[in-house]
């Protein structure tokens, strides 16, 4: 199996075997991260620009560390100190960055699909680090790796996802990836945060209550309430939300006894998850972050090899 894409923009664009390749490479990349000398010379001489139009701690740091562990030179650009605040368009910013000859641009942008636009404009590889409410492929891949670590497989698992599905790019990438690998997805959330027609994405069931979704689940993925993206009309208040859709030590028992609990972060403690569950022994949240570096190393490695192959 060979990876022949120049870009990784959405898990929807990748086949099952390509996703398996990215995950298996990530599994073996972890060995590098466990050494004293956490560096391999693979991408020596490559330049990676991290262009983040939206704030991020985990993803940006993780991509930066991943690039550095592969010996690439990584440069971070944040909106507060870039020309975007002076009115430069995305296309102009991209062309200017391109003149500096980067090999990969890792971008996060508030507009869904902006990476497809960028990919047509520039010749270097594009990796999506989150675009609007579309996809967040690296999060989808690291979630799949974390689940595979525990169960050794992805097919035949019941995965519950609870929260703001409409605004969640993590949910879309998880759904695209996990359904391709044979998992069944059960969604729950306030009807105002459930996108109509989401069942059409594959093996996806929309549940009326949280209990229906979590019942006998192998994996429970809690999503963040994205208060910066939604207006005030989607839910009355966070206390009511927490009562109906928050994960706590009581309702986590609805899932299988060895079920794993995940969250893409950042967590609103006490809203979508109680601290008891966040810090409990079913929580795999920090494992997700750890796997994030290996997954991003795998993505950077494969897009570098996939360049110029059409």
């Amino acid at each position, binding site marked *: 199996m060979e990876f022949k894409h120049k870009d990784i923009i959405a898990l929807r664009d990748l086949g099952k075997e390509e996703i398996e390749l990215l995950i298996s490479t990530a599994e073996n990349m972890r060995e590098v991260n466990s050494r004293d000398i956490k560096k*391999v010379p693979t991408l020596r001489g490559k330049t990676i620009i991290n262009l983040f139009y939206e704030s991020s701690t985990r993803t940006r740091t993780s991509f930066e560390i991943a690039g550095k562990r592969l010996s690439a030179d990584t440069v971070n650009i944040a909106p507060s100190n870039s020309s975007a605040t002076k009115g430069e368009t995305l296309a102009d910013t991209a062309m200017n960055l391109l003149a500096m000859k980067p090999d990969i641009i890792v971008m996060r942008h508030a507009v869904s699909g902006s990476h497809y636009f960028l990919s047509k404009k520039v010749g270097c590889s594009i990796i999506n680090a989150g675009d609007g409410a579309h996809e967040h492929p690296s999060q989808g891949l690291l979630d799949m790796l974390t689940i595979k670590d525990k169960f050794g497989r992805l097919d035949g698992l019941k995965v519950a996802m609870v929260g703001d599905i409409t605004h969640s790019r993590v949910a879309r990438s998880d759904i695209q990836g996990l359904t391709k690998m044979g998992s069944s997805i059960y969604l729950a959330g306030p009807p105002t945060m459930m996108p109509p027609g989401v069942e059409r994405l594959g093996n996806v069931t929309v549940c009326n209550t949280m209990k229906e979704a979590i019942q006998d689940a192998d994996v429970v993925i809690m999503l963040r309430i994205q208060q910066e993206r939604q207006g005030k009309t989607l839910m009355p208040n966070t206390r009511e939300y927490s009562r109906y859709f928050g994960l706590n030590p009581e309702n986590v028992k609805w899932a299988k006894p060895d079920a794993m609990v995940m969250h893409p972060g950042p967590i609103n403690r006490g809203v979508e998850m109680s601290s008891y569950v966040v810090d409990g022994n079913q929580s795999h949240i920090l494992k997700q972050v750890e796997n994030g570096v290996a997954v991003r190393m795998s993505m950077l490695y*494969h897009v570098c090899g996939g360049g110029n192959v059409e």
Partner: protein
Amino acid sequence: MAGETIKTVILDNSGIRRALTRISHELLEKNKGLSDVVLVGIQSGGAYLAREISLCMEIIEGERVPVGSIDITLYRDDFKQQAPHKSVGKTDISFSLEGKRVVLVDDVLFTGRTIRAALDALMDHGRPCCIQLAVLIDRGHRELPIRADFVGRNVPTSLKENVEVIFDDQQQPVEVVLEK
């Protein structure tokens, strides 16, 4: 018959066994026993052979040496923009290399570029006391100043030929074939 590959068995199963036994004896002689010796096989053929050599040494000395495996994909020097990258194999060295006498094991020694990559990879795991190289087949055509300390069989080849060590499902060496 033009274009068809001709396969010749140049070393059969018992031949491989004898070669590995001799390498084990030479290895013990050179290192004056087993102390501080560790074996590291290059994925995938070398890793299988490293395990076989460790079993031979155990029969001779009655003691086991640590065996690890190393994948050199991330250290290759032939990354090309044109070629899709191969998937990365598993590196499994669960012991410290610090001050150890490391014996690197590979199945076929050819240009020496794989060994160069493996040396770099090993150095990133620590500072061994010394590194020796054991190979089952040395087919010549070196492109780098590298030689093996222990060789199963020297096989003069042309660049058009290919030498392959065949392993079965249990990762046991079966035979060595020359394809032309």
